[in-house]
């Protein structure tokens, strides 16, 4: 068996949108762009919006970040051969999110994911790349209204500093669409927890 070594990461750079979200870079090159619809029209579960901002160490919004979302459906199944079970037709659980060029605010719509099993609170995985980020950052968003499940979550409990766990928990605001706020701080006060997965 070959013994190969993983290709080294390099920053996605300032022009990542050209490759991964050309519509956001301002031009049309593909008939079908990927990552716009996370849950699809047939997904069970509560429809939600998630919004936030990614901030750098000087508390400035990062306007050129690209995030990818990965999540289970309402039954805790992923759209993947090892995903634990079937998902609704059109459910991908994956999407791409880019912020507003002016404000750095981003948002996406999806469904509330289910738990994938005992000791796993519902959560959404996020992966961030941008100019100045040398290797993509993995984090997770948990739901403030799942406090009981969060308290038993194996990953949250792995974080030794209890006050840092709060950086992964998004507060809920009910409106026309229930909305969770998840700000991500790369550095400084309230630095978000990132994972080596």
């Amino acid at each position, binding site marked *: 068996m070959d013994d190969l070594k993983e290709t080294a990461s390099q920053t996605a750079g300032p022009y990542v949108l050209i*490759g991964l979200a050309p519509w956001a870079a301002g031009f049309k090159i593909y008939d079908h762009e990927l990552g716009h619809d996370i849950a699809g029209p047939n997904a069970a579960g509560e429809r939600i919006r998630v919004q936030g901002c990614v901030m750098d160490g000087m508390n400035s919004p990062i306007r050129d970040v690209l995030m990818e979302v990965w*999540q289970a459906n309402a039954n805790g199944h992923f759209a993947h051969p090892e995903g634990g079970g079937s998902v609704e037709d059109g459910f991908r659980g994956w999407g791409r999110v880019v912020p507003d060029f002016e404000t750095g605010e981003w948002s996406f719509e999806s469904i509330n994911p289910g738990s994938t099993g005992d000791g796993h609170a519902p959560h959404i995985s996020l992966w961030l790349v941008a100019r100045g980020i040398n290797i993509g950052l993995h984090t997770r968003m948990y739901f403030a209204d799942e406090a009981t499940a969060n308290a038993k979550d194996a990953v949250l409990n792995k974080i030794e500093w209890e006050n840092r766990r709060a950086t992964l928990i998004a507060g809920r605001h009910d409106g026309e669409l229930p909305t969770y706020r998840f700000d991500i701080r790369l550095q400084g006060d309230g630095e978000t927890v990132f994972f080596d997965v």
Partner: protein
Amino acid sequence: MSDGDYIRRNWDRHPPALTPNYKTSVARSPRFPLISLQSTASERTGPTFGHSDIAPGDNDLIHNFAAPGAAAIGERIILHGRVLDENGRPVPHTLVEIWQANAGGRYRHKKDTYFAAMDPNFGGAGRTLTDDTGAYAFRTIKPGAYPWPNRGNDWRPAHIHISVFGQAFLQRLITQCYFEGDPLIPLCPIVRTIPDPQAIDDLTARLDMKNTIPLDTIAYHFDIILRGRRSTPFENRPEGG
């Protein structure tokens, strides 16, 4: 052979978050160490893609943004190779996306104000799926080197950005490939964020005369290696069992 958990990432191969000679990294690098997790289903799964997601011509950057009958300007190249895991196993049917500057070193982006000319027939993005053997191929033009303000007179070597998914979200990777023989490679602060000289050499696409199309397009070869899985054939056989 069964599939075990994924092999831990070898962080010695990768750039650290904080690399002061690449100035933008200073305010965008977490100061606390990453929390190491035993991977869960969330990391061992990941998005899958099929041929309905892309179009056949998406991997031809010479034509995928060009007016009918026109073509992008520049040195015509094929960039091809395989996506493999650390065990040398092919990663089939995975999405590979690339983006790059045009032959003059200019990106199609409102924030790129370099005065190299735009090429109206070049978009600068392409995508494809690997085949059953993990092979991928793009046709494009060789991008130009370009200056950037980092330390006043830094120049990026010619490079193509590459994004790969693999079969698990923990395999997700974005990198850049460079071109054999480019004297700018060892000078570049972004290249030099990588501490391991072998890892840098592994980002260099090799001239591949065998796959050149004579009188048409020159070829470069570049393999992409993603994290592999442990083989655990004895996992359920305790001693004496």
